[in-house]
C-alpha cells in the first residue's frame, strides 16, 4: 500500500483503489500483526461503511481534504459512541458521548478512524508497558518496546496498520515512540490543537500529536485538526497556516545544539555518532550548526515530573468509581469505596504519579516543590525562547538510547526509565513545537530519531525544514 497520503489520494482519484480497499487492507494488516498488540479494538463495520460513503464522494468530486486518510486513535482521544479508557482498568466499559475536537475536524474532512490503539495507562510511561492490555511490541528488533506512551500508535504506522496515528505528547509521548519505531513524530505548539476530548494527563503540557510516515502527512493532518475551539478555553486563537502547502525554502538555517545534551552520560554512542554525522552533513550543506551551553538541562526532568504529576493527581481525581468506569465489587463504605476502586482500577505507574503529585501539592511541600518547579519552568521557557530567537532550531537526539527491551526497567531502575524523556520534555516544559525524524539505525537495526525544536507557533518553518531534511537524508530514512 502507499506510504504517503499524496500517493494514496492520487490512486483514489484515478480509481486505482477505493477507500474500501484501503480499510480492508489495513484491517488485514492489523489482524496479521496481532502479536504487536497495537490495536485494542478496530471499528471494522463502521470504517467500511464510512469508506463506501467516501468512495462515493470521491467519485462525485466532493471529498474532503482527508478522504482516504486512515487514522488510528490512541486510547486517550474521544470518539463519540466508542469505548475509551486510556488503557486503564478504571475506565472499563466507558463509552464517550462526544467527539474530541480534533476528531470532529478530521471527520469533517472525511478521515476514517480505524480503531483505538494501546498505550501507556493515562499516557504515563515511555514503553507502552504500563497498559491494562499488556505491552505493545516494536516491529523493529526482537522483544523491544515501541516507546511510549503513544507506543502502539507508532507501531501501527511503522507496521502499516494505518497511514497516520493521533497520539498525545505530554513529555515526548509522540516523538519518543516515533524515534523508537522509525517514523515521524510531530508535537505542535501547546494550545495549537484543542485538547477538548483528549483525556488529560497534565493539562499545561498535553498536546495531541501526529505520527506519520513523512512530514507532509503530518503537516496536512495538523492543518485540519488545529485551531480555535469554543470547548477549550486555552486553545490558541491564532489562524492556522496552510502547513501542507509549505514549500522547501531556499535558505541557510541556523541550528544549535547544547553541549550538555551531547555530553550527557546516558547518551548511546551510536546515537551520538548519528547526531555528529547529521550535524556535519548540515554544515556541509552550508547551514550554521553551533553549540550552546544549557546548564539547565539537568533541571528539566525534575521540573517536568513535579509539575506533570501535580496536575495529574488532580486531573485523575474524577476517576472515583461514583459516576462511571470501574467500581470495587466489595461492599464497603464511601471512603473505602474510593480507596478500593482507585487502588484496584489504576495501575502501578499511574498510582505512583498520583502519589507523587499529591505529595508535591500537599500543604507542607507545596512551596518547596510545586511553586519552585513553576519558577524553574518559567526560567527554562525564557531561556529557550531567547535561544530560538537567535537560532532557527535546536537539534538533539530524540532519545538517549534506541528502543530498549521489554521488561528492562522496573522499580529498581525507574529513574533510568524516566531518562528516556530527557531530550523530549523541553518542548513540553516550554510549550514549543518539535518533530522527531527517523535518521539511520543502530548496528542492531534499531531506528534512531533526531529532534528539531522551533519557537512557539513556528510549525510552518519547522515543516519547511523537515521537508528539506527528509530529502537530504532520504537514503538514511528508515524503511
Amino acid at each position, binding site marked *: 500500500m502507499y506510504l504517503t497520503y499524496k500517493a494514496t489520494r492520487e490512486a483514489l482519484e484515478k480509481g486505482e483503489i477505493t477507500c474500501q480497499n484501503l480499510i480492508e487492507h489495513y484491517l488485514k494488516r492489523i489482524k496479521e500483526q496481532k502479536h504487536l498488540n497495537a490495536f485494542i479494538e478496530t471499528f471494522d463495520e463502521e470504517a467500511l461503511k464510512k469508506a463506501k460513503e467516501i468512495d462515493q464522494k470521491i467519485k462525485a468530486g466532493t471529498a474532503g481534504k482527508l478522504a482516504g486518510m486512515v487514522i488510528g486513535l490512541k486510547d486517550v482521544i474521544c470518539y463519540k459512541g466508542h469505548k*475509551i479508557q486510556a488503557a486503564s482498568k478504571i475506565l472499563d466499559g466507558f463509552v464517550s*458521548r462526544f467527539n474530541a475536537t480534533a476528531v470532529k475536524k478530521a471527520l469533517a474532512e472525511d478521515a476514517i478512524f480505524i480503531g483505538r490503539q494501546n498505550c501507556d495507562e493515562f499516557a504515563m510511561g515511555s514503553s507502552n508497558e504500563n497498559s491494562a492490555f499488556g505491552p505493545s511490541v516494536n516491529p523493529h528488533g526482537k522483544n523491544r518496546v515501541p516507546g511510549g506512551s503513544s507506543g502502539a500508535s507508532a507501531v501501527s504506522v511503522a507496521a502499516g496498520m494505518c497511514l497516520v496515528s493521533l497520539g498525545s505528547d505530554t513529555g515526548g509521548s509522540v516523538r519518543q515512540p516515533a524515534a523508537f519505531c522509525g517514523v515521524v513524530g510531530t508535537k505542535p505548539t501547546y494550545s495549537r490543537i484543542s485538547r*477538548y476530548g483528549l483525556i488529560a494527563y497534565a493539562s499545561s503540557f498535553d498536546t495531541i500529536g501526529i505520527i506519520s510516515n513523512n512530514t507532509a502527512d503530518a503537516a496536512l493532518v495538523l492543518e485540519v485538526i488545529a485551531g480555535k475551539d469554543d470547548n477549550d*478555553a486555552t486553545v490558541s486563537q491564532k489562524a492556522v497556516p496552510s502547513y501542507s502547502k509549505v514549500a522547501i525554502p531556499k535558505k541557510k538555517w541556523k541550528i544549535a545544539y547544547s553541549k550538555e545534551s551531547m555530553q550527557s552520560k546516558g547518551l548511546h554512542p551510536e546515537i551520538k555518532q548519528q547526531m555528529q554525522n547529521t550535524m556535519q552533513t548540515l554544515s556541509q550543506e552550508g547551514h550554521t550548526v553551533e553549540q550552546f551551553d544549557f546548564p539547565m538541562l539537568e533541571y528539566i526532568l525534575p521540573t517536568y515530573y513535579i509539575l506533570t504529576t501535580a*496536575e495529574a*493527581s488532580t486531573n485523575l481525581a474524577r476517576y472515583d468509581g461514583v*459516576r462511571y468506569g470501574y467500581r470495587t465489587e466489595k461492599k464497603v463504605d464511601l471512603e473505602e469505596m474510593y480507596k478500593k476502586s482507585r487502588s484496584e482500577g489504576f495501575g502501578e505507574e499511574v498510582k505512583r504519579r498520583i502519589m507523587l503529585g499529591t505529595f508535591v501539592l500537599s500543604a507542607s511541600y507545596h512551596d518547596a516543590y510545586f511553586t519552585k518547579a513553576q519558577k524553574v519552568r518559567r526560567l527554562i521557557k525564557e531561556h529557550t525562547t531567547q535561544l530560538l530567537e537567535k537560532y532557527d532550531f535546536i537539534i538533539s537526539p530524540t532519545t538517549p538510547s534506541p528502543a530498549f527491551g521489554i521488561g528492562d526497567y522496573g522499580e529498581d531502575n525507574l529513574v533510568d526509565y524516566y531518562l528516556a524523556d530527557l531530550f523530549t520534555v523541553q518542548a513540553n516544559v516550554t510549550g514549543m513545537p518539535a518533530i522527531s525524524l527517523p535518521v539511520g539505525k543502530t548496528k542492531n537495526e534499531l531506528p534512531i530519531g533526531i529532534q528539531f525544536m522551533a519557537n512557539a507557533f513556528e510549525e510552518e518553518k519547522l515543516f519547511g525544514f523537515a521537508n528539506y531534511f527528509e530529502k537530504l537524508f532520504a537514503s538514511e530514512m528508515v524503511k
Partner: protein
Amino acid sequence: MDQTVVDQYELVVGLEVHTQLSTQTKAFSNDVNSYGDEPNTNFSVITLAHPGTLPKSNKVAVEYAIKMGLACRCKIKRYNIFDRKNYFYPDLPKGFQLTQDKAPICLGGYFDVHSERGEVKIRLNRIHMEEDAGKSIHLEGAAFTMVDLNRAGVPLLEIVTEPDIRYAEEAVQVMEQIRRLVRYLNISDGNMEEGSLRCDANISVRKKGDEQLGCKVEVKNMNSMRNVQKAIEYEKLRQIKALELGEEIISETRTFNPDTGKTYGMRTKEALNDYRYFPEPDLPPIIIKEEDLKRLESEMPPLPHELFMKFTDEYKLPSYDAGVLTDQKEIALYFEDLCKYTSNYKSASNWLMTTIKSYLNENNIEIGDFPLKSAQIAQLIQLVDDGQVSNTVAKNKLLKAFLKAPSVHPKTLAERLNIIQESDDDFITPIINNVLERYPDKVVAYKKGKKNLLGMFMGEVMKESKGKVDPKKANQLIREALEK
C-alpha cells in the same frame, strides 16, 4: 443565666455568605442553571466530569461578581485565576471545586449597620467566585444517599466579612443588605429558603476588653434571617455557659436546628483535609480590562444606600421612610419616579408606604403589577393638596374608583362621586348653623370652657355635609361661630 454574667462577654461574629448567581448557564459549562428542576437533568458531559472535558468561563458570572464588588465598595482585582480545591465527595464530579478562595476578585469593602452600639462599619474581607457542588440527599431510613447534580457547577459568590460583628442583629442586617443588593443588582434571587442565599457564621465569645479572639465555632444551616439571629444568640449563650463552667470551646462545625432553636456539633473529619490548592491549568487568567470595568460601573443601578441618602437629604424624608422605601428596588424606583411628578415627598412616601403597599399585600401582587402609574398617584396627591378632596376620601373612595377606571382623570371621578370638597362659606355656614341650633346645651358648655367639644361639632358638620366640606375651612368657621 444571670444577665450580669452574660454582659461580661462580648460576641464576635464573622459571616461567610454564599449566593447563587442567577446566570442562565453554569459557571464552567453551558448547562442550564435553574432551581427546582427534575433531579439530574441539567448537566452535560462537562458537569459530569467525563474524561476529556474542559471547563469554559462564564463571562456573565464574572460581571455579576464585579457588580457585587462595586456595590460593596470593594477593590476589583484585574488579574484573576481559579484554583482547584481538591477533595473527594460524590456530589463533586471532578474531584475538585474551582474557587478563588486564595485569590479573590473583590477585596475590602464594607456594610453600614446600626445596633445598640450605634452606627458601625462591618468590613468585608473579600468576595470571591466559585462553583457549587451537587446536592447529596440523605433520606431517612434509606440505605443509600442520592445525588442530584443539577446544582453542580452553579456559579456562587462567597462574601466574607471580617469578624467585626458584635450583635446578632448586626449579622441580620448584613444579611439583609446582601439580599437587598443582589436583588437590586439582579444577580441572584437571594432566596434563603431555597438555598440561593446561604449563611455560615463563625462565632466566638470573649471577655469584654480581651484583645485575643476566643475559639470559634462555625455554624451552618441557618436558612432564614430569623434563624441567623436565633442561631447566633443561642450559640453565644452556649459558649458563655461552657466557659463559665470552665469548659473549653472546641473549634468545630455545628448545624442549627430550626425546630429546637439549638446548634449541634457535626461529626466531620474536615479539619484533616489538605485541599492541595492548585491553579486551574484549563482556564486562562481572567483579565478585567479598564473599559469593561468602566462599562460595568456605568451600568450600575442606583443602590439602596445611595437612594437612602437621596431620600433623606434631598427629599427630607425621615430615615424610617427612606428605609422602608429602599427595601425593595422596584418600590424605591416607583417612588423615585413619583417624585418627578410631585414635590410633596412626604405625602408621596405615605401613599407608597401605607396605601399602595397594603393594596399590593391584599392582592398579593408586586409594584410592577400595580394598575396606576406614578404620575396618576401624583394627580391624587395634587387633588388633596389643592383641598379638592380630603386625604381620607382620596385614599379610600377615590382610589378605589381610580383603580377601576385608571383611564379617567381622578378629578372627573371625584366629581362623578360627588366628593369634591366645598370650601365655600355660603355652603358651609348654613350647615354649621343647623348643627349649632340642634345642640344649644353643648354650645353653652363650649362657651364655658369645654373646648374639646369642637371635635364633636366637626364630626356633626362632616356628617351633615356627607364629608364634602373642607375640614380646615369648616374647623375655622365653626370656631368663629362659637366665639361669636
